[in-house]
Structures are given as structure tokens and as C-alpha cells.
């Protein structure tokens, strides 16, 4: 191995060790003042996003509660409700054949 090759290998080894050791070259905007500005901007952006997320979370919770209330108040579509119509039939509040296989009960208002 000649001298030139040895120097080149040594330079490469030093460079590699420097990289492992974190001795990066300074970033383009690497001054402490720039770091502070960037950090401040990131913190502001984070605060804005956090506020928006909190708002969305509240909207979601409200809509979830409203849906649960609707579900609680919404009749089961599979239920068969046994409305007592005996007195209405006896009173004559009926229309149609008494032999009908389907009975429709209407909650009726004159207004």
C-alpha cells in the first residue's frame, strides 16, 4: 500500500467517525436565533392544531350524544307493538272491513 492510499483511507475513517460522533456540518439555518424562531412557529402551529382538534372532539362528542338520544327515543323497527284498539272498534272509530288481515291504527288529530 502506498502513502497516498494510506492517507485517503485515513481521511475516510476520520470522516466516518465524525459522522458517527454527530459532528455534522452546521445546517443552513443553524444559528441559535433561527432555532428559536422555528421552535416558536412550530409551537404556534401545534397550538392551533390542538385547538382545532379539541373543537372537533367536542363536536364529535355532541353528535355522538345526540345520536344516542335519537336511538334511545327511536322505536325498534323490528318491534310489534300491541296497541289496544278494542274500545275504538266498539265505539265505531273504524273504517274498512272487520275481516281485513291488516289493521292500520292511526293516531288521529282533527287539527
Amino acid at each position, binding site marked *: 500500500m502506498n502513502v497516498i492510499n494510506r492517507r485517503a483511507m485515513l481521511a475516510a475513517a476520520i470522516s466516518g467517525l465524525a459522522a458517527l460522533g454527530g459532528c455534522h456540518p452546521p445546517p443552513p439555518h443553524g444559528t441559535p436565533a433561527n432555532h428559536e424562531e422555528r421552535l416558536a412557529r412550530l409551537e404556534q402551529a401545534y397550538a392551533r392544531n390542538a385547538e382545532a382538534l379539541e373543537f372537533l372532539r367536542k363536536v364529535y362528542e355532541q353528535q355522538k350524544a345526540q345520536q344516542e338520544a335519537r336511538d334511545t327515543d327511536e322505536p325498534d323497527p323490528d318491534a310489534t*307493538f300491541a296497541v289496544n284498539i278494542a274500545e275504538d272498534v266498539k265505539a265505531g272509530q273504524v273504517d274498512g272491513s272487520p275481516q281485513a288481515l291488516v289493521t292500520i*291504527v292511526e293516531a288521529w*288529530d282533527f287539527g
Partner: protein
Amino acid sequence: MVFKNLVVHPQIVMVAHKAGCAAAKQGKFVAFKNAFWDKAFDPYAAAHDPSKLGEGNIMTIAKDLGLDPARLTADMNSPGCAARIEDDMAELAKFHVNATPTFFINGKIIDGAVAKEEFKKVIDEQLRLAEASGVPGADYYDKVVFAKGERQFRSKKTPKQP
């Protein structure tokens, strides 16, 4: 079809509900209901004239239908008709019915305005089930719907009791 009183606007239509009850006692509930709609409610809605829903106009309609006015008045003011209306509303309250239109088609509830097709679909399905049951029409509601149905409101979130 069975009509159950649900008085949503008592201040303007309680008299009509009592008259409907009284007309039923003379076998003319449906005739009265239809005539009231044509000769009382429609003119009231067109002119915003509450007198069209009042007792004077109701008695004119009753007379046109051949109802006995004295008997009608007596029945309208009887405790029986007041109880009939209250009982209907109490029964509907068990199923959380508090608005019109609300229908039960062989016990299947339809509330609010729904498309005609949806209505027909439920009727057709119930007709199919009733025909398949072999139970005569005259008995079907009592023996199947009322005997086996649920006696109070149940939401879609509440499991059916065994």
C-alpha cells in the same frame, strides 16, 4: 283502519274530537271525519278562521250528515266521550306517540311522513305474514298482533324482553 284520538291542538280541535266520538255513537264517525276535513279544516286552513273549527260549524256539518243534533250535543258533553279521548291518548302514550301522523300497521310503527312506497312495503309484508299464518282476518289482530306484541314502547337500543 282504526282511529285513535291524539289531540295535539286542544285549544282548537277538542270540540271536533268530542264531536267525532259523538258521531261514532250514531255510526257516522268516518262520514263526520271526512266532512269535517272538507268543510271545517280546509276552510280554516285557507282563511285562518278558527270559527270554522267551532261548535257552530260542526253542528251544521252534523246536520248535513243527518246526525241527531240533540243527541250529538249530549254525547259531546258526556263524560263518556271525554274518557274515550283520554283513554286513546293514554294508550298512545305507552308507545311514546306524541305527534301525527303516526301509524301502526299490524303493530309496526311508522312515525312521521314516509314515502308511499315505504308504507306499501310494510303493508305488503304484513299482509304476506298474515296470509301465511292461516289465522282468519277477523281474529288476526287480537290473536297475533295484540296477543303476541309488546305492550309498551321499546327503543332500538333496548333489547327485547324474552
